């Protein structure tokens, strides 16, 4: 037994001694492992280099992409000198086509008519960030004919051609031919912006919209919502004879070789500091509204005020205007006090569920007009609808019922249905 154990121990010791590598083997092993580590380090370094290279390439590609996008965006914004000029120049327009079916008490005055009432193109240009040019050219009633007696279909008119300068963030000056700062429609009369196929009559007979003059104007607007304008311009030249004697609307000189003997001074103050509310009042003084002394139509003052209130789809417009004209002739004719007012509530419904139709508006308007001519003295009720497929296009339908003040003009009383399409772009 003892011999067997001893033999087993000796065998185990000899086996252990045979499994241990010798120094040479260990050296070779370490050398081999060292080479492997060096190889791995080399591979790691190469990989790190490639990663850094890739990172640089990605960075460069990103910069190239950003640069390319910026270039494309700049081209879109007018990168070249030609497109930069184009970018500073804008072209637009508006127009309206009407159909009127008039049923008058005097049937000889009945008529049905369709007319492209006006088509306007505007071109504006920005010389730099503070100096701009605005212009509007209008063709009324579709065509202009050269006839021997001067009668023709319509008119070609330059309604605006002025330079505007920003004096600072709150003040501007303009000079040239511009719209008189008066009333609601005179400066904002694109068809999609108002109700009714025809514009209201107060801003036709009493405020002769569209009313433009040559001159200069200063304007200011402030953070509290107040604004002001003051203009010195050419004035009206009201006729002193004929069927339009003393008629305000016939006094527009339309900037064509306009007499500047007696100028007009216009001041307007406005307030729109409460969202949805706009209040405005204008005073104008003309030293001689006929541009001729001693003819019995002399100094004139215009006072007008309006209010507009919007709340959601609801809107209320109200305007009043009155002329006070001095002169023996105009007083004798009863035209020394010409006035008018209107009120117009409306509601606009958004109708996205109707697909093509974006919104529908319903309105009614009452107006009282007291001009100098018998046909310009009346009361009128009106109601109708506007249909907007998009903000810049409108279809209109309305009904009007007009009654004149004087019995002599009662044959002109009428009921009318009007259809219209209007657009701006």
């Amino acid at each position: 037994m003892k011999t067997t154990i001893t033999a087993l121990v000796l065998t185990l010791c000899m086996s252990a001694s045979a499994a241990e590598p010798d120094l040479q083997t260990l050296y070779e092993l370490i050398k081999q492992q060292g080479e492997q580590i060096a190889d791995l380090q080399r591979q790691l370094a190469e990989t790190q280099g490639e990663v850094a290279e890739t990172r640089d390439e990605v960075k460069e590609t990103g910069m190239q992409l950003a640069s390319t996008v910026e270039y494309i965006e700049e081209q879109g914004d007018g990168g070249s000198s030609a497109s930069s000029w184009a970018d500073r120049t804008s072209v637009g327009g508006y127009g309206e086509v009407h159909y009127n079916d008039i049923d008058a008490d005097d049937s000889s005055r009945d008529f049905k008519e369709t007319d492209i009432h006006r088509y306007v193109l505007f071109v504006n240009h920005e010389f730099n960030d503070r100096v701009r040019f605005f212009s509007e050219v209008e063709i009324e009633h579709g065509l202009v004919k050269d006839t021997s007696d001067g009668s023709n279909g319509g008119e070609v008119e330059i309604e605006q051609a002025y330079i505007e300068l920003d004096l600072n963030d709150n003040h501007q000056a303009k000079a040239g031919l511009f719209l008189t700062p008066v009333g609601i429609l005179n400066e904002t009369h694109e068809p999609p912006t108002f109700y009714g196929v025809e514009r209201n009559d107060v801003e036709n007979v009493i405020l002769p919209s569209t009313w433009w003059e040559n001159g200069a104007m200063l304007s200011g607007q402030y953070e509290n919502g107040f604004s002001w304008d003051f203009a010195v311009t050419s004035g009206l030249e009201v006729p002193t004879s004929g069927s339009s004697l003393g008629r305000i609307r016939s006094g527009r000189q339309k900037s064509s070789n306009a007499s500047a003997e007696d100028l007009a001074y216009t001041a307007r103050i406005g307030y729109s500091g409460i969202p949805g509310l706009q209040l405005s009042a204008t005073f104008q003084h003309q030293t001689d509204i006929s541009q001729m002394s001693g003819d019995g139509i002399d100094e004139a003052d215009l006072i007008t005020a309006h209010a507009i209130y919007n709340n959601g789809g609801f809107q209320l417009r109200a305007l009043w205007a009155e002329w006070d004209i001095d002169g023996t002739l105009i007083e004798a004719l009863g035209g020394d006090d010409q006035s008018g007012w209107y009120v117009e509530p409306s509601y606009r419904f958004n109708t996205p569920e109707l697909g093509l139709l974006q919104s529908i508006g319903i309105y009614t308007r009452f107006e009282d007009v007291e001009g100098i001519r018998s046909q310009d003295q009346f009361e009128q009720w009106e109601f109708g609808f506007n249909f907007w497929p998009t903000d810049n296009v409108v279809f209109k339908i309305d009904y009007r019922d007009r009654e004149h003040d004087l019995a002599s003009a009662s044959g002109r009383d009428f009921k009318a249905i009007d259809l219209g399409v209007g657009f701006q772009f």
Partner: protein
Amino acid sequence: MQMRMIIGLISMLWMSCASAGSAPGDEQVYHTQDDYLQGVFQGAIPHPGTIWPDSALRGQLKDILGRKPGLRFRYWGADGKTAWILDQIGKDRPITAGVVINQGKIEDIRVLVFRESRGWEVKYDFFTRQFSELWLDSRQELSGSIDNITGATLSVNAMKRMARAALLLHEYSNQNTQTLANAR
């Protein structure tokens, strides 16, 4: 009398120019982009991010803006708040506005550059405060109404479009804490 009035007008023009202070040639810039962002992030403007709209988002932005959207939209975002600088034409000139969205609602909207001839009211707080706290509803409309300004409808519409676009883009930014499915 007439000559006195004309001289008076010229005097007013001269005084206005003199009081303007800034030299002609400056743009009608009410806030620079940097000043605006400094104010929004209290001096610590975050690194800008970029959204590259895919075709679906481009379609939505086209509906909102009424025109093709740009290739990319840069924004600045931190702590659930994003700021966007956007351009949109009102009547015929672009309006530049800054819009800040916080947790999916409008925190601030401000005109940075105004170039239009009408609609000056949109530059001021009495108009822009109507946008405060509005969000985008399921029809991608603003959650509340914005009262119109007569004579400046197109400028008002431009402001509304920029507000809606910023609210939509916020949902695709890295500051949107809600999933798109329940963002509204």
